[in-house]
């Protein structure tokens, strides 16, 4: 039966269903137990599965990630929550030096099936350190998979796939879309593998590359482009940032000959840089214009009153689409 589901509810349901289906799955972090998480993503999991399977930890991100490694080594499937993007950094060393590398260091004898959930991105008027987009750090780290859903249905399916993955996954949740509602059947039948990109909307003139919170913005931009400019955008939702689904990306750019990448994270060495590099390597002779990037500025994330000037929006995307079309 189709029901109206928010992304937050879809994520909660995914955690619930994985915990139900696999005793080894543990959910823990700051405030995830009785409170159900500051965004309620872990709502009622403790009541349903008990304090041994869903529990609050001391307030220490390195501790949460480092003990996750130990729990995974023991044979559990930890799903730790980082409360906010900007609070992930104390756990940086555990994620980068240990979780990402352990399999490789052990010559493949040890797997670490753990999923680090991180609410990320801006647009909710939050206080400092609560709106960051740190995906490049994790994408740059060999040994981690990095995925991010843009819709409630993907949130459900991709989180379940991430938890089932034998490799460690950084699961980035676009927090401004937590309350986005759709009518959807859960579980989704035959979900697409989380490593694959998806053409959200076919088009002919420009490929618009988006992920996470920018999926919806990109689709809005496509509607506006069609209506206001008579331009047809093909919206490609990457879904997985590492590995990148080059086949879907490159096939689209070869069709349109133009590529505009959108993300909230700052410009320099953001995902857009990597997309631009891959596109020019793999679709050079098809390009009619340079790959352009619509991103946050190379400044610290701004105070809430200024975030609308900082974040990419439909207008900024359309400006860059027009610029691409002028070549």
């Amino acid at each position, binding site marked *: 039966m189709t029901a109206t589901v928010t992304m937050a509810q879809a994520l909660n349901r995914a955690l619930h269903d994985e915990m139900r289906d696999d005793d080894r799955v543990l959910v823990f972090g700051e405030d995830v137990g009785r409170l159900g998480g500051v965004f309620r993503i872990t709502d009622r999991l403790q009541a349903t599965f008990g304090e041994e399977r869903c529990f609050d930890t001391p307030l220490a991100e390195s501790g949460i990630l480092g*003990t996750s490694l130990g729990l995974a080594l023991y044979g559990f499937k930890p799903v730790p929550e980082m409360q906010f993007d900007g609070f992930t950094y104390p756990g940086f060393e555990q994620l980068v030096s240990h979780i990402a590398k352990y399999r490789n260091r052990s010559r493949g004898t040890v797997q670490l099936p753990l999923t680090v959930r991180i609410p990320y991105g801006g647009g909710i008027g939050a206080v400092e350190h609560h709106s960051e987009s740190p995906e490049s750090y994790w994408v740059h780290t060999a040994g981690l998979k990095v995925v991010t859903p843009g819709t409630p249905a993907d949130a459900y399916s991709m989180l379940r796939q991430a938890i089932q993955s034998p490799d460690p996954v950084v699961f980035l949740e676009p927090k401004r879309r937590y309350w986005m509602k759709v009518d959807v059947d859960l579980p989704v039948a035959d979900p697409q593998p989380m490593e694959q990109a998806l053409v959200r909307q076919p088009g002919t003139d420009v490929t618009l590359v988006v992920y996470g919170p920018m999926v919806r913005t990109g689709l809005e931009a496509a509607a506006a482009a069609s209506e206001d400019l008579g331009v047809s955008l093909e919206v490609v939702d990457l879904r997985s940032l590492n590995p990148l689904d080059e086949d879907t990306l490159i096939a689209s750019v070869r069709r349109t000959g133009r590529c505009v990448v959108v993300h909230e994270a700052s410009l320099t060495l953001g995902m857009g840089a990597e997309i631009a590099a891959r596109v020019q390597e793999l679709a050079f002779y098809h390009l009619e214009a340079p790959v352009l990037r619509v991103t946050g500025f190379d400044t610290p994330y701004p105070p809430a009153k200024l975030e609308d000037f900082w974040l990419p929006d439909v207008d900024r995307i359309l400006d860059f689409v027009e610029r691409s079309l002028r070549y």
Partner: protein
Amino acid sequence: MGDSEEPDREANEPHEGPDYRSLLDPDTDPAELLPNLQPIRLLDRNGQLGEHEAYPLDLKDEDLRTLYRHMVVARRVDREAINLQRQGQLGVYASCLGQEAAQVGSAYALADQDWIFPSYRELAAGIVRGIDTAGMLQLYRGTWLSDYDPYEFHFALMAIPISTQCLHAAGFAMGARLAGEPVVTLVYFGDGATSEGDFHEASNFAAVFQAPCVFFCQNNQYAISVPLSKQTHAPSIAHKGVGYGMPGRRVDGNDVLASYAVTKWASERARRGEGPTLIEALTYRMEAHTTSDDPTRYRTREELDYWATFDPIARMEKFLKGRDLWEDRFAAAVEDEAREQSGHVRDQIYDAPHPDPEELFAHVYVEPPPHLERQRRQLQAELAGGGEPAPGGGDLEGLVDAQRREVL
């Protein structure tokens, strides 16, 4: 202040209002968690065995000999590793000379199902676990980053970043408790590691979750060149335990029997569900921090000579002789094993095959993703001597050529 009234130190009546009681269970006096500054010692410098009510020895004659044997083998392999580094066979090596008793005694106290989480100086503990020391040294040779199966020996990968492994041990112990299995973890770290945040977070997690984890600090007096007095202003490292609600104990780390007995006590209380313990083993790093270090810049000959009089192996030898557990045949067997082990390590390191460059890509993910596959093919082409390496990796030029044909 001067003449002002002295506070009434006797008054310990509860205040009216919120509950100010200790978080420990009512029967536990926080003072019980504190260590004595004098470390627990069973064997004195002359090999005389004392007794300690709280830490009885449950070892048979054969165990006593085995402890000695492990220490001698460890020292010989350690010496061999230093030689191998001097001969250019190892890039660097961190010696455990002088710390054999702390490692052998503590590792020997564990049950087979228990897990050890080492830093990078735990050759002697690895020997107790029966790991091929040549496999442990591959990290230092640069062949690969480890060459033993952690699940086979219950010995986690060596951790070079400081104190990070404390959290792995705490998490693993949390897992054992959740699974309801009688598994204990023991984590090795140094005095310098207690300044790192991960030591604090691990101690706190282990205590909050009452995880069966033994924190075994080898206080060898120096973090490279920095003495302990510049790491902490606590009365001792073991005193830090009370801050987490776990007992702290100081033990003579050059006394293999005390190291054994105190670890046994800590691991059994962990196994009974009584939570973690912090053990500070007082020892001394007789060698440089690593073969790259020059300790003459920060410590004196006199200091070294002084600590040499506490040598753990000499002490145990005196004890065994005093107990009539020493016979020429035993001494010869130990000597044979030490010679055989160090010879084995020398041969294995000299003969270790060069790693296969393609293994670079083999273990990063369970299924190599396409971009890694392309980079692997690029390296393959380079190894075959074929053409210039393509910047994006692999058969990129082929891809671009195909595009050119398609478009033009």
